[in-house]
């Protein structure tokens, strides 16, 4: 078990190196750079720009720049310098990464809490108005772009006279110390992004849960359990649901890239303090080290998430053994 984790973590290192090289190359393909704008600014002499470039090693060949960047990360935890903010990248990202992970985790929790019961319900009672309504919403959920849902929810809240849209806190709570009032204020803001991000996941997970449960309910051991005279509810929950959930955990890993993408997109719309708006601004301003770092970190989040999904599967399903 421990060896499996260690091996997986070690395998992440070459993968992250390749990813970092790819994103570094992609950013270099951008026409111009952050410093290009100063060349047209009469307040800066070309010599000044040259000096800044030399200071940051931007006049060196690309592979040297890349290796120096990697060296900085590995040896000093230095992810480069944000030209836009005039500060090292490392100091800027961690709080945003924290909010991103928080939002993603809350969304996953909500997705499972909503989707699994709905999936069970529609599998057990496939006909009826409730199941039809749930199905319709699930199809809609898969077709609705997350940013559009966010916009619709904002429009809805605004039309009801509400003001809790955008950001995580109302102005008076932004710098306030943590307390019940602040948490309540955050929740009042948080439900829009969570609903917008999780609808697609709920729709997909619910359909998978129903399909799995329908498969399992047709299995021989369910008939055996019924034949033994096990109570209906016990067959459903202990025998069927318990077995139907396992494949969903491995599917949870597959849904992570979409989740991270949605979180970023919805955060840009709602201006949440995650890596989303930060990535967007940095991309537009060609703040290259911030962009490469954020892309690298979002890949890292994805890999760690996949590992956790595999570990969860190991924990839930005793039949699975990783070597």
């Amino acid at each position: 078990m421990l060896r499996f984790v260690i091996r997986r973590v070690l395998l992440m290192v070459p993968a992250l190196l390749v990813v970092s090289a790819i994103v570094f190359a992609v950013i270099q393909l951008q026409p111009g750079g952050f410093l290009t704008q100063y060349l047209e600014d009469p307040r800066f002499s070309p010599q000044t720009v040259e000096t800044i470039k030399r200071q940051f090693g931007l006049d060196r060949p690309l592979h040297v720049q890349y290796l120096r960047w990697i060296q900085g990360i590995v040896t000093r935890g230095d992810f480069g310098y944000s030209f836009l903010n005039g500060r090292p990248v490392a100091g800027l990202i961690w709080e945003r990464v924290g909010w991103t992970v928080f939002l993603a985790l809350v969304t996953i929790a909500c997705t499972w809490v909503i989707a699994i019961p709905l999936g069970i319900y529609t599998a057990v009672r496939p006909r009826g108005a409730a199941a039809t309504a749930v199905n319709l919403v699930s199809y809609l959920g898969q077709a609705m772009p997350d940013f559009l849902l966010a916009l619709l929810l904002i429009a809805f809240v605004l039309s009801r006279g509400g003001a809790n849209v955008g950001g995580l806190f109302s102005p008076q709570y932004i710098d306030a110390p943590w307390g019940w009032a602040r948490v309540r204020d955050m929740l009042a803001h948080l439900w829009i992004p969570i609903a917008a991000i999780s609808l697609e996941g709920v729709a997909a997970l619910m359909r998978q849960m129903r399909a799995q449960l329908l498969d399992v309910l047709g299995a021989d051991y369910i008939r055996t359990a019924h034949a033994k005279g096990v109570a209906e509810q016990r067959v459903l929950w202990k025998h069927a649901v318990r077995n139907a959930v396992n494949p969903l955990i491995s599917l949870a890993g597959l849904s992570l890239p979409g989740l991270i993408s949605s979180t970023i997109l919805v955060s840009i719309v709602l201006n949440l303090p995650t890596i989303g708006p930060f990535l967007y601004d940095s991309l537009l301003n060609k703040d290259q080290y911030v962009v490469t770092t954020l892309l690298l970190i979002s890949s890292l989040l994805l890999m760690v998430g996949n590992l956790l999904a595999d570990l969860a599967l190991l924990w839930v399903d005793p039949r699975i053994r990783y070597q």
Partner: protein
Amino acid sequence: MRQGAAVPRRSSLAWRRFRRSVPGVISAAVLLLLYAVALLAPFLAPYSLVEQHPALTYQPPQRIHIIREGRLARPYVYPMAKTRDPVTFVSRFTADTSRPLPIRFFVRGDSYALLGLRLDRHLFGVDGGTVFLLGTDAVGRCVLSRLLVGSRVSLTVGIVGVAISFAIGIVLGGLSGYYAGVLDTLLQRVIEILLSIPRLPILLALATVIPASWPSTRVYLGIVAVLSLIGWAGLARVIRGQVMAVRHLEYVTAARAIGLRDMRIILRHIMPNLSSYLIVTATLALPGYILGESALSFLGLGVKEPMASWGLLLRDAQSFNALHLYPWLLAPGALIVISVMAFNFLGDSLRDVADIQSS
């Protein structure tokens, strides 16, 4: 069932099965309609993509009336006039009920090129006024017209993108599955790494590579290229699995025995046999491109003015203020949902048909 002579019967069998799936048929009809609308968009749209009406910015949609003075009348709209509240400066639109504007068909408007012809007739319009059934935007452009013409970009991005991704995916996935071994391992690692970068961030990064100075048609191609560059990996992996499953079947061995080149075996023998599977995969992959383009354009990194796409039109509704005051700007979103839903339903029912065929 599997003999060559049975092929036409098999496809007609599939067609009969498909016809029985109600959601499949409905969504196919909806998609045909959408693409027909996209093709004829300049004719169907009452105004051009760029025609501005500065006096009528942010005009709410006009309603079509059919009853006048208690009697059924030719469909008409009331002209709208903008007034400003002298105290709050909020602009308000009032309908001039004294002057109904009957809706006329095949009216003359600005000229456009359609199917190689220069035309100036539009499906409908009014004389001596304006008709905006979905309102206008910040500079007084007709939202309905922009939405209709914008459907050309939104609906073709998926087709072109999937075509490019499939070309790459079939060749690389085919080679990977056919040869197995070192090449396969190598390609699979590359695909794994590509898939381990979250899609949206890398899409955004790639979209900023497209120079801002490019004309909008080239930006469109650039966006399609960016979407395909990310999209092929998943397709290649799926195709590889299918090729692996058939590479030891008799017909492949036979093709090899008569000395055909490997590439020819992959493209002319294996792929046609996987065709039903490929069609299903393509249909289910399409929504991803439509959604990807709309997300990029919505963020201002996709297609740019004077082109329009549904995502780009939604960008106008991005500010909280606009959302509150001008909710009709959200109309393009409905079309995104409808087209994506139609492709999903169509893919699902095609998959059911293909499943029954293969079993």
